[in-house]
């Protein structure tokens, strides 16, 4: 007993009040090694760097774009200037069409993503946890996954019609597979020691899933959700290009038919911004999940 006190007596006194990274070094278990404290400081002082650094390339591209329209004689119906695109945005915004398109597209993506990731989590958990489910479902799901997304469109239009459900279903299909695949593989590789521990401490199948297995696969689940979200936007545009009267995909197709390159640029930029924004929301979700479980 006395040996414990001599070896570890210093730790509680110094460690109890400090932040986690200090405690880690007190206990000598910091993965980053002794240099951690020295290297942290400059990084913390330069908080602006990730934001400014990330904006450098987009700003550079914007500059090149502007220079290309200003100093060369490419006609504006081939390459609109940034100002043209801003004007197009103002025009569509004041008529309300831009907001309507953004709203309807976001709604479709969020609905499809929500259904798809839910289905992906349920089926992915089944396949990852049960050998029987894996034997029964894996070949079928592998085959369905291999079907190119656009192949579903004619069938969906024929069966479900050209209105909202067919688009949401298409996005659901697109969102389900990445979640399903990453989750089932990750669940199969959860540390068997921890699973046995859960069993030994009386956890049933469901509580084992929520207590041990799902928390262990959060990083994989989040990357699955990220991929699913990207797929959702992809499938959205596919759905809207083919049959729609509203939405960013419709805006793209309509502008293409009318030769409005400025609006095509606008739609692409809006899609990029929306995609990045929703992706950032997944980042927030990840931090919340890791805080809850991590």
């Amino acid at each position, binding site marked *: *007993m*006395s*040996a*414990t*006190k001599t*070896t*570890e007596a210093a*730790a*509680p006194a110094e*460690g*109890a009040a400090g932040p*986690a990274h200090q*405690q*880690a070094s007190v*206990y*000598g*278990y910091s*993965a980053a090694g002794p240099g951690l404290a020295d290297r942290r400081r400059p990084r913390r002082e330069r908080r602006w760097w990730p934001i400014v650094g990330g904006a450098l390339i987009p700003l550079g591209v914007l500059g090149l774009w502007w220079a290309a329209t200003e100093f060369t004689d490419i006609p504006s119906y081939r390459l609109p200037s940034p100002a043209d695109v801003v004007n197009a945005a103002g025009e569509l915004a004041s008529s309300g069409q831009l907001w309507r398109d953004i709203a309807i597209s976001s709604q479709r993506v969020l609905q499809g993503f929500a259904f798809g990731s839910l289905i992906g989590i349920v089926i992915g958990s089944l396949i990852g946890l049960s050998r029987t489910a894996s034997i029964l479902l894996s070949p079928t799901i592998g085959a369905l996954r291999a079907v190119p997304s656009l192949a579903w469109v004619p069938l969906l239009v024929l069966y479900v019609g050209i209105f909202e459900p067919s688009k949401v279903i298409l996005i659901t299909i697109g969102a389900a597979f990445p979640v399903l695949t990453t989750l089932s593989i990750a669940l199969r590789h959860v540390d068997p*020691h*921890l699973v*046995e*521990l859960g*069993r*030994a*401490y*009386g956890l049933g199948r469901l509580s084992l899933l929520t*207590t*041990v297995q799902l*928390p*262990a696969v*959060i990083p994989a689940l989040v990357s699955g959700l990220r991929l699913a979200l990207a797929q959702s936007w992809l499938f959205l545009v596919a759905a809207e290009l083919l049959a729609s009267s509203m939405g960013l995909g419709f805006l793209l197709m309509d502008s293409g038919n009318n030769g409005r390159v400025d609006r095509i640029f606008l739609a692409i930029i809006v899609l990029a911004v929306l995609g990045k924004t929703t992706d950032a929301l997944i980042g927030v979700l990840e931090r919340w999940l*890791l805080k809850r*479980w*991590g």
Partner: protein
Amino acid sequence: MTVAEAPVVPALPVRISGVGRRFPTPDGGDRVVLRDIDLGIRAGEIVALLGASGCGKSTLLRLISGLDRADAGELAIGDSPVAVVDQRCAVAFQEPRLLPWRTIARNVELGLPRGTDKAAGRARVAELLRLVQLDHAANLRPRQISGGMAQRASLARALARNPRVLLLDEPFGALDALTRLTMQDLLLDIHAAEPTTIVLVTHDVDEALQLADRIVLLGSDDTAPGATIRRVLEVGKKRPRDRGDAQLAILRAELLSLLGVESHHPEDYITKAIKAQRAKRAGA
């Protein structure tokens, strides 16, 4: 050390009769790991299962816990047979097996029996953390603590079950020699505070001698494949035991020779040790 009042749960005896376990081999055959194990463990007793590595000690422990099923024979805890993952047992594994995303306190909480009242559970966890001297580390994560601390957390989690039978699978095997001695003393303190039946798997002869009421030596005799009980030794000394005790030294020499390890004692070592002890007693 002072230990807060623990919920009184009577320790239960364990009865193992004619137990055997075989595992299929990749070539379609069978490998007998354990055969004909007969052992009665008294309630509140500390029994050490000792043997060379790979002799089936951990397998026997898993059979008692119900994590694995025997092919032959019967196992019972108290009056009823061992259930699949018997909740009257608590296991501390060779590795601490803490959930890395939970704090130490929340890891210990995992051991509480289902349906424990929230406030009572929190109080019990705090009390156990004090018992294993981890109260200062309650809010740390497993990766922030040392191996010895992680093993103590694992022990606290097992105790949180209020087990009738506590099963320890080489719980201190991965620790450095000094920490191991400290942990052995701690385990004895805990046993004194919360007396439960303890079955301890170890390959450390000294650990077995220090902790156990009886030492069960597992190994194969050459009559048939698979390990069985070769010897049961009653240590018969009050704890805490003098680590340099002469009678323990005799038992150690005997166990080592049974395990096929040369103890390098001179031929008259045992006689000398007994004489020395008698002299000491006479002097005292």
